[in-house]
């Protein structure tokens, strides 16, 4: 009898503990108006069953912030082999190099948000449903620079000329490194999913080529407010294959960062190639 009484009392005591606490309000995620553009690097792969969850999350984020978020799909070696024989292999050396540059990781899907260290020792963040909270935090920071892409693409020669202009919105007193990449969407492949292989899955924002070194190219040692600096690049698009290097699906992605040690990205931008 006494044991039963003890059980009942304990149950009511711990049950009532939940009411001791004052309710904490939810922090609603509203639209943030800013000039800042965030780079999200999505570490993904065609043979990664959990990765479509991350991709769907990013599409949702892009709908919310179409002008403030740029996504780059990093198909680095882990779980990125084609899900079915005959599919194009989306792994690139540049993707593997970015994976190495950003260091520690646990698995996939993971994303880096402006390459800022948000959790523990890892720049890459798991749990896709939390990515938007870090993007919101990143968007609330003061915009430091503006980036502009001007491009000229010739269909016949497949030559692409790019001019990137960075304009400082504050006095930047440290070196700025520029990164330029070509990404491609509309690549239809098989994709491992939580309940089997998905056919005809659209791979979006896939990093195809870095035009700058993986740590970026030194643009300037500093930039006073309202000053601009420009860099130009030339790239010949590889010959189109059945599924890859379709100029209509390609985009130019540019972003500026501190340096290889302090990898934080200051600003990003994206422009369709055609």
């Amino acid at each position: 009898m006494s044991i039963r009484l003890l059980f009942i009392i304990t149950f009511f005591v711990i049950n009532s503990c939940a009411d001791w606490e004052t309710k904490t309000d939810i922090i609603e995620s509203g639209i943030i108006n800013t000039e800042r553009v965030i780079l999200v690097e999505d570490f993904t792969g065609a043979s990664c069953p959990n990765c479509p969850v991350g991709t769907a999350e990013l599409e949702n984020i892009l709908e919310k912030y179409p002008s403030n978020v740029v996504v780059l799909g990093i198909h680095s070696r882990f779980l990125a082999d084609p899900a079915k024989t005959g599919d194009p292999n989306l792994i690139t050396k540049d993707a593997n190099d970015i994976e190495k540059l950003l260091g520690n990781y646990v698995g996939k899907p993971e994303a880096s948000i402006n390459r800022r260290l948000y959790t523990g020792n890892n720049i890459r963040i798991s749990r896709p449903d939390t990515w938007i909270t870090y993007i919101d935090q990143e968007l609330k920071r003061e915009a430091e620079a503006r980036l502009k892409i001007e491009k000229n693409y010739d269909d016949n020669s497949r030559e692409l000329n790019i001019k990137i202009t960075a304009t400082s919105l504050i006095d930047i007193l440290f070196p700025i490194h520029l990164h330029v990449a070509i990404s491609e969407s509309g690549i239809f492949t098989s994709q491992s999913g939580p309940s089997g292989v998905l056919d005809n899955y659209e791979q979006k924002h896939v990093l195809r080529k870095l035009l700058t070194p993986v740590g970026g190219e030194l643009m300037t040692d500093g930039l006073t407010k309202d000053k601009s600096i420009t860099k130009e690049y030339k790239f010949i698009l590889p010959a189109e294959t059945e599924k890859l290097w379709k100029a209509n699906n390609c985009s130019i992605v540019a972003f500026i960062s501190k340096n290889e040690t302090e990898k934080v990205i200051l600003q990003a931008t994206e422009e369709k190639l055609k």
Partner: protein
Amino acid sequence: MINQKYYILILIVIFKSSLSYAQEGLSVWGGFQTNANLFLKDSAIGAINIPQYDKQIFGSETWINLNISYSGFLVGLRYDLFNNSNLLNPNSSYTANGLGRWFISKSVDKLDISAGYLYDQIGSGIIYRSFEERAQLLDNALLGFSLKYNMTDNWNVKGFAGKQKNLFSSYNSFIKGINLNGFYKKSDSASWSIAPGIGFVNRTYGDAIVEELARTSGSYLPIDQFSPSYNTNAATFYNTLYYKNFSWYLETSIKLDDIYYDPNAVRQLPKGQTNLGKFVKGPGHVYYSSFGYSGNKIGITAEAKRTDGFDFRAEPGLALNRGLVAFIPPMARVNTYRLTAYYTPATQFLSEGAFQLDVKYNINENWNFGINYSDIRDKDFNKQFYRELHTEITYKQPDHYQISFGVQRQEFNQELYFGKGGQPVVKTFTPFVEVLYDFNETNSLRVETQYMHNKQDIGSWIYVLAEYGISPHWLFELSDMYNTVPLKGKKSINYPTAGLVYTKGNSRFGLRFVKQVQGIVCSGGICRLEPAFSGFRASITTNF
């Protein structure tokens, strides 16, 4: 955080004072363990592309601990050193060193007082267990204090409070608990006795954690939003009933309204789409029971468990084996042979219903027979996750030889345990034989072999190991693992290992050349690579 040097200074002062004032009653003991890896790139088996193979080449882990007892005080120190270690995360490199543990304890009359990094558990650990598992670089000691009051020889109550250790720092939550343990036997001649207990644990998140949860909840659509909170409470009730040769353990644990990540929960997106994975808030429970019988010739153990929503961690964003406050007993046989242990079912915290039966029978002094059956399903016992039947027969001819042989049958849901969506259930059939032959009092040979017949996942494999021992110092080892029927366009590759161990007193020195097969472990919506290994492994362990 108080400087670690401060703690070391206090402990050294205590140690030195003890030495100065008296040698009598002073005991000093400790241990040393180091593992060193030399990484040799081998692209054929996938031993590439982590910093250790690319550039670091060498990695190691070292633990040195020292314990001192004097005049009722027990003081302990452990120094940990990790250099390019891949234990924490097999995909990367971890380098750090510092004071891994310190503690001091003292008994005053009926009161035991402890402070520092403490290991303990309540019941079987379902609502609270702090322990160290070096093979996984798992050390969730509680940095805090503990008080235990021994009311009688058989009844005690203890309380503890602190923060869970996270490598050389601690997680952003505070854990406290209280536990009553007892034992009752009517008289020395009574045929029955009971050992009941009750425990309560509260975990309080730090402000930053709750703010993060509030933001995450705010980013969900209203239908998926949860109310962020600081506190979670868990309680457990347990008892062991002993009657003659029988014992029966029963534990019921409940956890109220905790916020945890459910990788399979469906979350709504704004335009009507859905996605998998979200934080949810809700209660959880575990029912666990174990029945044992130990007779003259027969031993029987039967266990059953049901788990629902019991992912109890120091922080809500943690995954895999990090920050676990709870330890839920696994329900599958612990296999030791290389191939019978390849498919091991990880404990499911959110939904699991399982039972296990283990019978050991001594036919006579030469023959033993054992059979184990385990069955793991979802919480409603509908969907099969894992099933294993393991039989083993042993024949002993004392001082001459011993032969063990048997067969294992496994059904392993790789969709769940490896995260390989849409892949069929792995069905293995693994016969095994082990022979131990004593040539004389000092020389012996042990040979084991297993063949895993498997038409799914990694295909069929054979493993052979020979160990030659020259007692009391030397042990030589040679083994190979080979995929006889590779699948998915893979090549058949040999994974040889050769090694030697030298034992002298309390010290053991080992050196091995290892080629180890790669695997993937997926849990909690995250897939983690357990990379192949190629290179040398050296180890030294000693106690003093």
